[in-house]
């Protein structure tokens, strides 16, 4: 490698600072949210009471908001900036400035929301469903987080447009393309949550209006809430498609297939929110059915991803002389945390995805709806598949940005962390799935329900959850320790930012995949098709609305 490409492959110091700022907030959030999670599982085991007037629902809100909304968004924005800077070139001053404005908006918003939760003014859980009413500053804080993420998204769009202008007729670098798709999806999706917060919840919490339409607010939330899970997942897919192949020493199975799967996610991840509302009144079952079908369309790009990853691994293993049906598995670098941790994530996405298909199936939703099965489900998807991949990314990206290296000792510790996570989550999520099938509700501070016989059946599972939660918290402490080491104390050196190459470099990605007028046009059409009539129905048949409640 000559000096020039080496220079290009290293992220500019100013961009690196931007990335690290995002990661500091993300990892502080991980610690706070993880601690809240640990306390929750201890309370739910029925063996522990919270001290000092701390409420269970307050902790649950903190856990959800800080981890699902804040930690993920900060990590994702930081990672996407770094991916764009690495593959489409250093950000311009204007782009970097825009990104910093976004970062500060998000940070101020986060602090506002977190303070309101800690003051016990906003124990409304991370879905902040009306008619639970939080302090207005909680909603203002969340709005700032979203507006900040739009501003940051603007910087990514500017970087993409800049690259395309400089390279007419060429497909954009794969990681930049993927970051752009995720940004576009995020902007379209967050319009829903921004609408309910700005036009319904904020005026209502300020007392400007007395009542709120609950069904409309929930529908707007889930218009955002389902693509939110793909906003978490797609950066993990970026690592699986592009980065993991390079780490193992293999190739990307197909550049075009990866792009097509991302386009399919853009199209089908938004018009599907009603599958979260299958048991809700006020929405015609025909429209629920339509959105269930669209939900099942999203399985296609995930299965394409699974195929592509298996193929990448097998092709690599065979190039190393592997034979037999599964001999290639032995050739994978199991001792490398940068590979192993995301790989555990990939594995956990198999039961995670299977659970998702069950949740979205109309009849089966009645079996699992509002049970702790659902909590078990998203702890496999976002809290294992996604978060372990994010940890795996951190283990090379943080030292890359700070000019340090992941030492052998830290690599070992990282592997231990991943294994602990897998064990803890098997206990916790497995017990949640089982208890959920037995009817145990989610989002409930109660364990014994006044000595009811059915509730007694759930107790062993809740103890298993506490055991799993405790193991997970140990893993979180390890992650934080490794993060601090990589950020401040690891030996100086050059850690690679791995970016894979396609197996067939002669194959040029079809330019139609970069035709945003076409894809965004289809996105708008699909959303209009799936949501227009349900919203007209909801507005036409709107009840009087509900006053706000503070039940904590």
């Amino acid at each position: 490698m000559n000096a020039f490409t080496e220079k290009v492959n290293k992220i500019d110091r100013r961009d690196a600072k931007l990335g690290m700022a995002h990661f500091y907030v993300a990892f502080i959030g991980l610690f706070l949210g993880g601690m809240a999670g640990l306390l929750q599982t201890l309370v739910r085991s029925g063996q522990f009471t919270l001290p000092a007037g701390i409420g269970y629902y307050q902790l649950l809100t903190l856990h959800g908001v800080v981890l699902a909304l804040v930690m993920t968004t900060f990590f994702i924005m930081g990672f996407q900036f770094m991916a764009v800077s690495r593959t489409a070139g250093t950000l311009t001053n204007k782009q970097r400035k825009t990104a910093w404005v976004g970062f500060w908006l998000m940070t101020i918003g986060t602090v506002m929301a977190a303070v309101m939760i800690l003051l016990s003014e906003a124990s409304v859980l991370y879905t902040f469903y009306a008619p639970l009413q939080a302090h207005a500053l909680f909603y203002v804080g969340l709005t700032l987080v979203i507006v900040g993420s739009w501003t940051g998204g603007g910087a990514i769009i500017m970087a993409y447009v800049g690259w395309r202008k400089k390279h007419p007729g060429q497909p954009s670098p794969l990681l930049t393309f993927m970051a752009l798709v995720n940004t576009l999806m995020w902007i379209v999706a967050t319009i829903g949550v921004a609408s309910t917060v700005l036009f319904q919840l904020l005026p209502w919490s300020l007392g400007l209006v007395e009542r709120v339409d609950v069904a409309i607010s929930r529908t707007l939330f889930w218009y955002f809430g389902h693509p939110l899970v793909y906003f978490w997942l797609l950066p993990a897919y970026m690592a699986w498609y592009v980065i993991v192949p390079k780490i193992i020493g293999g190739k990307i199975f197909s550049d075009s297939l990866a792009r097509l799967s991302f386009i399919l996610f853009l199209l089908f991840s938004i018009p599907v929110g009603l599958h979260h509302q299958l048991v809700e009144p006020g929405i015609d079952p025909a429209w629920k059915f339509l959105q269930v079908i669209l939900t099942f369309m999203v399985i296609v790009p995930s299965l394409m991803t699974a195929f592509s990853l298996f193929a990448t691994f097998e092709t690599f293993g065979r190039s190393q002389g592997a034979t037999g049906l599964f001999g290639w598995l032995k050739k994978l670098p199991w001792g490398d945390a940068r590979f192993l941790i995301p790989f555990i994530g990939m594995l956990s996405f198999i039961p995670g995805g299977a659970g998702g298909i069950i949740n979205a199936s109309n009849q089966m939703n009645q079996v699992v709806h509002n049970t702790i099965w659902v909590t078990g489900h998203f702890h496999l998807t976002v809290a294992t598949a996604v978060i372990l991949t994010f940890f795996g990314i951190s283990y090379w990206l943080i030292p890359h940005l700070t000019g340090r290296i992941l030492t052998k000792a830290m690599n070992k510790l990282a592997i231990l962390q991943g294994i602990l996570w897998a064990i803890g989550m098997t206990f916790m999520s497995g017990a949640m799935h089982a208890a959920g099938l037995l009817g145990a509700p989610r989002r409930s501070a109660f364990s014994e329900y006044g000595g009811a016989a059915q509730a007694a059946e759930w107790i062993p599972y809740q103890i298993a959850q506490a055991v799993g939660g405790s193991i997970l918290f140990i893993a979180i402490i390890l992650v934080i320790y490794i993060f601090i080491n990589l950020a401040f104390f690891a030996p100086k050196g050059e850690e690679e930012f791995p970016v894979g190459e396609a197996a067939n470099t002669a194959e040029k990605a079809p330019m139609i995949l970069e035709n945003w007028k076409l894809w965004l046009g289809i996105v708008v059409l699909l959303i209009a098709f799936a949501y227009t009539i349900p919203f007209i129905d909801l507005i036409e048949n709107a009840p009087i609305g509900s006053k706000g409640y503070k039940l904590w």
Partner: protein
Amino acid sequence: MAQPGLEKRTKTKVEDSSSLKGTLASVFLLGFFLIITWVGVFLLFLNRF
């Protein structure tokens, strides 16, 4: 003179290094897993509702 060693035909299996049969098997296993879990919960639904 007969040379028995030469008559022995040694079959050397040459495996195609570009084979994706492991991938095929893997996606089938994945598919079966999805079907089994789905049917499992569907049976619960039938029993309960």
